[in-house]
């Protein structure tokens, strides 16, 4: 094995490149050279150009990244299907009870389900609920977890201790019990499923964000804000928050994948969506009993579900790989 493939090569590191030497404009005035001024302007334009070039490069690198592109195509495919499948496929709710559990054919590419509905149409339309639930639930979890994490990490001390103990309590509760209890309590609708999944993820998210805040609150710009007499809310929202977007985004993409999964599991256990939604988890749960005689009713939505989550994760993966280059 050659050196090029050695696992122990240092990662890309351009610490060297990052350093600058101070510019002192008044001193620059002393420069004898006449070309100096224009060069400075030139440098300005060059900087702008360089920024543009970098952006262009990133876009090109992303477009060239097979990981990212595969993920993007998959996700875009499902977004497209969620928006427009009604115009392409048959109706996902069109029942033809006399034609139930038919194997894939020219008329029904993916076959039909127990109520004689077109599995292709349902699989395509099934993207809708997931693409609504998962992102919104994730955002909700980020919002709540963000607030809790910010407050807890920013104030530290007793506030932090109390909040974290409460978060511990929530984490110690089995997710499935919490969701069953809440869903039984609030009933079922897309909105409630979103709220419940958001709530389920909140403790974990708040922990992540809390540790990011703790890392950030000791930074000097936060001290500077305090010396300026800024209120805590301002410091949290305007000073710290914009600087922890990276962990928030990372946490968000991880949660997004889990939100898809959780929504499916809740549907599967009968606590999520209700028929006739073509939701994948629900479909898998209800058609599961036909797996042996009509596997197409389960396998297509299962593959769809898997493909979407893989797609989301491929995008994340691709992005991080390109950015770290």
């Amino acid at each position, binding site marked *: 094995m050659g050196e090029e493939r050695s696992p122990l090569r240092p990662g890309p590191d351009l610490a060297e490149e990052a350093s600058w030497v101070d510019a002192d404009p008044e001193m620059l005035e002393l420069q004898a050279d006449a070309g100096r001024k224009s060069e400075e302007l030139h440098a300005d334009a060059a900087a702008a150009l360089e920024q543009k070039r970098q952006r262009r490069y990133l876009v090109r690198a992303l477009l060239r990244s097979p990981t990212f592109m595969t993920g993007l195509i998959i996700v875009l495919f499902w977004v497209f299907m969620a928006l427009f499948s009604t115009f392409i496929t048959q109706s996902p709710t069109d029942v033809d009870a006399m034609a139930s559990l038919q194997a894939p054919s020219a008329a029904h590419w993916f076959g039909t389900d127990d109520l004689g509905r077109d599995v292709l149409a349902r699989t395509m339309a099934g993207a809708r609920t997931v693409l609504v639930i998962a992102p919104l639930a994730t955002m909700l979890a980020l919002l709540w977890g963000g607030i809790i994490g910010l407050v807890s990490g920013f104030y530290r001390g007793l506030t932090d201790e109390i909040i974290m103990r409460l978060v511990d309590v929530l984490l110690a509760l089995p997710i499935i019990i919490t969701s069953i209890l809440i869903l039984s309590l609030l009933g079922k609708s897309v909105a409630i499923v979103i709220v419940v999944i958001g709530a389920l993820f909140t403790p974990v998210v708040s922990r992540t964000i809390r540790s990011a805040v703790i890392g950030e609150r000791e930074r000097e710009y936060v001290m500077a804000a305090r010396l300026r007499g800024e209120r805590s809310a301002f410091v949290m929202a305007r000073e710290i928050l914009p600087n922890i977007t990276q962990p928030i985004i990372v946490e968000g993409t991880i949660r997004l994948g889990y939100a898809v999964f959780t929504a499916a599991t809740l549907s599967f256990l009968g606590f999520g969506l209700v028929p006739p939604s073509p939701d994948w988890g629900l479909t898998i749960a209800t058609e599961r009993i036909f797996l042996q005689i009509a596997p197409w009713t*389960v396998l297509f939505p299962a593959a769809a579900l898997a493909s979407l989550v*893989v797609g989301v994760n491929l995008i994340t993966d691709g992005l991080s790989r390109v950015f770290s280059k």
Partner: protein
Amino acid sequence: MLRLIGRRLLLMVPTLILVSILIFALAEVLPGDVGRSILGPYATDQQVKILNKELGADRPLYERYASWAGGFVTGDWGDSLLLKVPVFPTVMKALGNSLVLAGFALLIIVPVSVLLGVYAGLRKDSFLDRGITISTLSMTVIPEFVSGVILLYIFAVWLKWLPVTAMPPEGAPFVDRFYYLILPAIPLMFLELGYIARMARVGTVQVLAMPYIRTAVLKGLPRRRVIFGHVLRNAMVPTVTVIGSQVGWLIGGLVVIETLFVYPGIGKLMVDAAQTHDVVMLEASVLMVAVIYMVSNLLADIVVALLNPRIRMGG
């Protein structure tokens, strides 16, 4: 170190108290009541009322909680309202079953996923890395109810290689249990593989970027020595934490697997109890799961401390 453990164990008490109160309160506001659950839909209101009174289910919430909690801490966990069986042995047996299943699953999951993750981390950005990352990821997102049913069909029904249930018949030797547990453990493995492998990979990648790895390499150590002596131990820290947090889930979140493989674990017990207002059973099983969750996290932290002398000596 001992102080840390002691403190953590002490902290479990208020957490468990809060958990029990929360569960009690949530179960209280659920639609339906225990009398209705016992007597079924066709009983008259009067019958239900009488039964609820008999069971004391009509007393105020705090009163019931106090009497339940009083019994619980003194070791009297009561009888299930619905099944009329003593709660303690029922919960402990189910918990034991779940622990066996989860333990067996972890026995497969941990070495495999750590191996894959570390390997991917060492070969960061290589074809293999991508392959491992994407394939474990894909496995992770297949819900266990899909993989479980497919596996059951292939291996138990079609090929008849493995038993269809997760419990061996009575009187079978203990080791037989593992033969029966292979099939249910695989969907669990799928679920956890991607997650743990990912953490192991991230841990490895992060450690590889540390200056002390450069030191080790530039000392002229062989690659094997660098990986096993310097990388692995430190790379394991995030992985161990994740595994610790997953054990709780493995114990309490196995409802689907337990249902599919007809395994008398605590997940199903808990869900059933929640749905039938069997508060004493629900409380005991949830608390046990919470205890397992906290203990496994504590164990993970202890392992982390063992891996990291700074934490070990700081506490």
